[in-house]
């Protein structure tokens, strides 16, 4: 297979996205696994650290998995004072 010249860049940007969106390797792997990804969680970890190379299709699946997780996360939002009243005290209803 050999090293694809784009692989380090693709891997680096995936890693940046994971860090920025606070996604763990376990989370990423489970999604990737559900998308028929065939590398193990260990291998994914090793790929992210640049220790092993993955075929293009597996790399693309990882990228897609990462993007899907990001798309599902609620966007960050800072509330104004009048949006705070929904937050009640703790305890039973």
């Amino acid at each position, binding site marked *: 297979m050999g090293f694809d010249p784009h692989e380090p860049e693709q891997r680096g940007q995936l890693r940046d996205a994971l860090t920025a969106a606070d996604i763990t390797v376990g989370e990423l792997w*489970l*999604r990737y*696994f*559900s*998308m*028929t990804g*065939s*590398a*193990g*969680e*260990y*291998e994914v970890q090793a790929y992210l650290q640049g220790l092993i190379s993955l075929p293009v*299709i597996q790399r*693309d*699946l990882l990228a*897609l998995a990462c993007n*899907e997780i990001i*798309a599902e996360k609620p966007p960050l939002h800072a509330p104004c004072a009048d949006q705070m009243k929904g937050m009640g005290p*703790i*305890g*039973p*209803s």
Partner: protein
Amino acid sequence: MTQLPLDDLTAAVARIRGLLLTEEKVDRAVALLAQAIKESLPGSPGAGVSLMDAAGKRTSSAATDSLVEKLDAAQYELGEGPCLTAWATGTVVIIEDLQTDTRWPRWQSAVASLPVRSVVSAPLVVGKEALGAFKIYSALPGQYDESTGRALSLFAETAATLLAHIQGTEAPLRMAESLKASLASRDTVNRACGMLMERQGISHERALQQLIQNARVSGATLVEVSEQLATRVPPAGS
């Protein structure tokens, strides 16, 4: 050809087994905690720990002796008592003498025949979540005061943090659900790949690439794209 490596399945199975163990681990942690409370306090009072869900229903509990069990059972049956109050308010509740304390009249009369006079109950709170409460009982009145309460609430904080890590009455369910879901979605994607391979006479990898491409163009997820493809009647021509 891409085959599911053994370590994937091992990881999946390990996760499932970890989940099944969780319930037992909570019960054990709760029992150890009750024992630790009893042994670390002067006079070795009876101690009990209860974990509750968001609705105040007991999910697991442990007691160092049957007396504590009786006191607790009465509390949760009647829906009132010092532990429920401690849990609901997030504060330490002190009963100096059960015979003269009238805050929980039904519970008081239910346990009047038992040899219990002093009670302290402290909530187990992590962040904003009240996990439950624990209490100690003594047969003599006036055994516990504010300083006992403060000491217990410090201890409760540590214990609650520990329990929060182990507790998983909801987490295992959620996790098992997500595993089931990922296996199902794996099937869906593979099925769609198979259909593309058959329809277009292409390799598995080419089929998967095509699905990825479709997902990227349409902005849908890979599973959604696969589902659409699998439910659509193939066009007669192309």
